[in-house]
């Protein structure tokens, strides 16, 4: 749905088997994969352990200590209601990361399956799928998502449905292109002429050889979806208060930019870190999964 471009991924499917080092060994030799995993693990752990780490609840207000700068008591200061920013940043991570990770699952599964079916069967299935993809891609991503959330209603449910309806198209396009290549290969023809059913050929032969590109893309996609989640939060259409959310925290702080700029700037840092980590994982996976 969003950025469409060759992202350095091979369009060639991983057909060349050959003798390769085991996946785990290759994974450990990729520095960007390891660095990325470390960053993502750190951010996720901090968010997961939030109740243990912080001293204040995310919504615990203290009107006498509003808008205070960083101190020993409040590491990242307090917002206009005297809520601890460090606590809110961590608690927001719990919601935003979970929503980001979960929201890509349906588009990944549905889009990939539809895409390989379109590429493998061709004909009407392909025409209908690809025309639908063309239409949905014509909508600017944020315009369609905002319109959908408007209809479904703001909040987490709205985010899940809006992402599910818009995001599968990228996977469908990618998987179709891959499937078009794989279905012409000799051993697929052999499997078919050996009497295997379409379902079995798709599941056992086409899917495993088209999935790696989609898996790499999932990493970048989580970044885009996370951005969409916080952007909707910023616009007031995402995760609703009082549940803390990085986007709405940034939006709340925008009124105080000239005096208390940390309120708006700090919640952006975990977003960028998560994005950096996942991008590194995606780069690393591209190398590790690339056919030798």
């Amino acid at each position: 749905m969003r950025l469409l471009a060759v992202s350095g991924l091979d369009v060639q499917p991983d057909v060349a088997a050959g003798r390769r080092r085991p996946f785990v060994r290759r994974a450990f030799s990729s520095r960007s994969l390891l660095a990325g995993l470390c960053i993502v693990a750190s951010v996720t752990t901090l968010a997961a352990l939030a109740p243990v780490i912080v001293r204040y609840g995310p919504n615990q207000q203290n009107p006498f200590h509003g808008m205070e700068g960083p101190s020993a008591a409040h590491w990242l200061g307090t917002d206009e209601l005297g809520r601890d920013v460090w606590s809110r940043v961590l608690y927001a991570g719990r919601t935003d990361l979970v929503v980001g990770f979960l929201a890509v699952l349906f588009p990944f599964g549905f889009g990939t399956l539809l895409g390989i079916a379109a590429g493998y069967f061709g004909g009407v299935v392909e025409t209908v799928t690809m025309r639908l993809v063309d239409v949905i891609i014509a909508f600017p991503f944020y315009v369609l998502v905002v319109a959908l959330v408007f209809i479904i209603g703001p909040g987490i449910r709205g985010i899940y449905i809006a992402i599910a309806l818009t995001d599968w198209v990228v996977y469908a396009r990618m998987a179709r292109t891959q499937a078009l290549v794989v279905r012409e290969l000799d051993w697929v023809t052999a499997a078919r002429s050996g009497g295997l059913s379409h379902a079995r050929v798709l599941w056992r032969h086409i899917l495993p050889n088209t999935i790696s590109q989609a898996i790499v893309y999932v990493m970048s996609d989580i970044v885009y979806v996370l951005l969409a989640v916080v952007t909707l939060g910023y616009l007031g259409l995402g995760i609703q208060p009082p549940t803390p959310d990085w986007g709405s925290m940034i939006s709340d702080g925008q009124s105080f930019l000239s005096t208390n700029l940390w309120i708006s700037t700090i919640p952006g840092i975990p977003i960028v870190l998560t994005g950096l980590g996942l991008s590194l994982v995606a780069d690393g996976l591209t190398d590790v999964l690339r056919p030798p």
Partner: protein
Amino acid sequence: MRKTWRYAVTRLAHSVPVVFGVTIVTFLLLHLIPGDPARKLVGPHAGPAAVAAVRRQLGLDGSLVNQFGVFLSRLAHGDTGRSFFYGVSTRSLVISRLSVTAALVGLAALFCVILTLPLATLAAVHKDRLADHAIRVIPLVGLGMPAFWIGILFIIVFSVNLGWFPVGGWGVTLGDHLRALVLPALTAALGIIPLLIRSLRAGVLDVLKADFVATARAKGLREMRVLFRHVTRNALIPTVALLGLNIAYLIGSTVIVERVFDLNGLGSLMLDAVGNRDFPVVEGVTLVFAVAVVALNLFTDLVSAQLDPRIRLG
């Protein structure tokens, strides 16, 4: 020449079903809302007559096919409905806001090209050296940056601290407008520049390996001249094509950027309409955005084909 025209006509014909599909999807958006939008709009205390009147005005009475017919015939007359909140036609609202968004997208596209080309060329020429590594960090960090956060950082640095640009708003004179657009356009451009740099770096690396570059060097041309005359010019084509491919994302990000910088364009019109539950405006603006994307895609494809005969001559 005939082949050029044939390419243009084929490409145009390809856009027609997309525009039709976009119209259907936009129609379904409003007309498949769970519950009764008319009821939601007038509130729980209105009588059945008022609800029915609003339903008729929205084109929500009759069967779905019937409703679609009404929707299409209204569209054919250039009528995209009437705003509940402003009491004027959606079309006039769109027209009054269009120039801000168009200027924003235009300037953002310009920033994309003038920032991406030199950076990608620099990275490719210095492959695997310091400049390359530094430039390759941009996509890694940049892709995870929310546009609204970048915008706020820009406001803090360039507006609040340095005072170079206004914090927001559109101003009165042409000079005001231009100054008001710099930061928003840069913010919108930064949303896709990381990706453009990544793809274009690979593109320039390919061009550098091409025979005509070797010939140019063999002729004894200075390296700078080779880069500008031969490499960059050939890399411009994929940049334009890539920009066209991602124009939907760029246009979509204006919705957010306009909010951050308080600009009254189409994006903020849409967000205001969402806030006011102004269904016809949301529908109208969504449709205009999508049709604009199809038109711009067509335009960039034709420009690319004009720049690169290989595309139109197949």
